[in-house]
């Protein structure tokens, strides 16, 4: 009886665990966040929590300068990190792959090291390195006669410094992805290029890079999402400071929820955050299909 029922409803029953999991772990939290974003749920307020419609969103875009600035800052950080990491990562990948030499695998393992370390530990070490008075970075700069910087402690240099730290940690990821991509490339185009008399630069520019494009796009997309939601490194080096100058969207949301206890308001930021990431991913997927890269 039961087995017949199961037989008949197989197509519903078998995906059920996955469906329940997705509803519990993704749809519900997301829906709940959207619901919260429409309320004024604030722990430090005497007023009862009420449904307030789009008020939070209107306030975010019309009144909250910190929010607008944190959005720009997030793009600034993400853009800077992406450009550096993708350029350096792809370049070093091609360089490493260029020739066969002994110890190549050791180089690959060493490349992995920055990614294996915990971000908070990395942040602590860089905090010491970049300390303006006692840090080793300024010491080295002085030794070679270059101007020193305040690094993480000035509003103008803090984001570039953070980009530096993030790139130190994550450029190897792009390198590894590039190496993996290079390993799958066919050799025939190179042979015909040599026959046609192309030099190294021309080979890289006209053959390697175009063929690597899908690989690079995936790597860049992964890094975009990660950079966009950057939290660990900023939180453990500057906490969003000096002033608000390294407060990205994620840090500001965290401030609002766990320091100001404005859960409703913070939820509305998270919804916007989600929309931006989702929008970008959809855009990239769409253009990839269109360009057939």
């Amino acid at each position, binding site marked *: 009886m039961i087995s017949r029922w199961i037989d008949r409803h197989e197509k519903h029953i078998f995906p059920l665990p996955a469906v329940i999991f997705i509803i519990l772990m993704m749809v519900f939290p997301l829906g709940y966040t959207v619901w919260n974003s429409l309320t004024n749920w604030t*722990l*430090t307020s005497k007023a009862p929590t009420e449904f307030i419609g789009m008020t939070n969103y209107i306030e975010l875009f019309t009144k909250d300068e910190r929010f607008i600035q944190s959005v720009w800052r997030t793009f600034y950080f993400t853009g800077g990190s992406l450009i550096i990491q993708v350029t350096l990562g792809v370049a070093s990948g091609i360089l490493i792959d260029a020739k066969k030499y002994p110890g190549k695998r050791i180089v690959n393992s060493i490349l992995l090291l920055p990614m294996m370390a915990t971000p908070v530990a990395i942040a602590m070490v860089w905090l010491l390195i970049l300390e303006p*008075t006692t840090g080793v970075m300024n010491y080295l700069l002085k030794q070679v006669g270059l101007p020193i910087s305040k690094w*993480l*402690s*000035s509003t103008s240099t803090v984001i570039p410094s953070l980009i530096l730290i993030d790139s130190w940690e994550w450029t190897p990821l792009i390198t590894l992805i590039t190496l993996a991509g290079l390993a799958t490339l066919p050799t025939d185009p190179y042979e015909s290029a040599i026959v046609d008399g192309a030099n190294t630069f021309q080979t890289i520019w006209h053959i390697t890079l175009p063929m690597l494009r899908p690989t690079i796009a995936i790597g860049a997309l992964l890094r975009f999402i990660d950079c966009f939601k950057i939290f660990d490194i900023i939180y453990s080096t500057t906490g969003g*400071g000096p*002033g608000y100058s390294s407060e990205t969207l994620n840090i500001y949301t965290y401030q609002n929820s766990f320091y*100001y206890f404005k859960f409703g308001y913070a939820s509305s930021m998270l919804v916007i955050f989600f929309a931006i990431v989702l929008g970008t991913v959809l855009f990239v997927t769409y253009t990839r299909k269109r360009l057939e890269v």
Partner: protein
Amino acid sequence: MKRLNLLLVLILILSSVLSVSAQDKPFDGQTIRVVLANHAWTDAVAPKIPEFEALTGIKVEWESYGEEQLNQKLTTEFIAGNAGVDVFMTRPLQEGANMEMNGWYYDLAEKTAADVEYDFEDFTESSRSATTFNGTITAIPLVTEQEILYYRKDILEENGIEVPTTLDELYAAAEKLNDPANEFYGFVARGQRSPLVTQLSSFIYSYGGDWFDRDTYTATLNTPETLAGIEMYSNLLKNFGPPGVLNMHWAQCIGIFNEKKVAFYTDASSLYPNLLDPTKSDVAEVTGCAVFPAGPAGAVMYDITAWGLSIYAESQNKDAAWEFIRWATGKENSLFIQGEKAQQLARTSVWNDPEGIKSFPADWAAAVAGSIGAKSYDRPLITAVTEARDLIGGIVVTAIEGGDYLKAADEANVKFQEMLNNEKP
């Protein structure tokens, strides 16, 4: 027969022992969860917890966290309605108003009133008033703090400079000693947006300013007095502070002071072991302490109760929890913690006991004595205090960076007023 007698005697002895212990230990076998902060007070008390367990038979499961993590953890647990917490450490000035509003504190009035031996009146009046919100005794005061001036005795002596007694003298002395070319700086204090606010408070008070008018709930962040305090603080840091001061909390300030790179430093009195303890500091021999320098309105520093010990309102073991608190903050233990472990507690009897102050350096004790009874708050006493601190700290950061801090102060004042409007009783 003999054996039976022996057995009877044994049973008799055993039962009498058991009954005695049951009378002496009414909470025997109970378990309480105690959530503490990473603080020197915790370090002093934690090793003695087994004594308490042996004494009462209460099993104490304790854990400790950094101060912000502690607040976040407790808030999340309390919102979730988790009744697992019995005793917790709390900052009356930081989260007191909010936690009281949410009804998370158990009112200790009954317990303290009923316990003559405990002598709650022994705590200083300012500390008791600091932990009382709307008539509810939310916490037993633990440690107190005052803002004092730390300075390098040797440097001042070499340069023939007297210890500053006014802020103007401090400014002049810092200017004279500042020598950035040789990496020596006149003054250091906190420059991080939110942490700096508490240390800024004494500057503002000493110029006659305040955060807001507590009667009318009018924001006063851009009054001439408050601005004068902000200017003094930010000018000292901008002109004579080390580079990177905007990322400095007290740990970084102490770090640079210990590296013999700074002449003056204003911060909480409770930080003194980091500077005056030879095992922790390279400048212990040459660091002096003085009362916070006076401004036009006199030397008005903060004298606050930094931490208190509370019982969670939903705790299932309130009696056992109170047993723990009365033991931890009782006279005997307080004398030990202050006398041996050099923590600044709030019990008058301990301060009056020579045993109670034997571990403190003389000039430090004098600086603290000269500060007791001043302002009992070092930040705006409102529920949304973190947000307010960010607002106020933002003005100072703008000033240190050389920006238009007058405009920043006006803007912050408008936002602060909006917050105050929500808080009006």
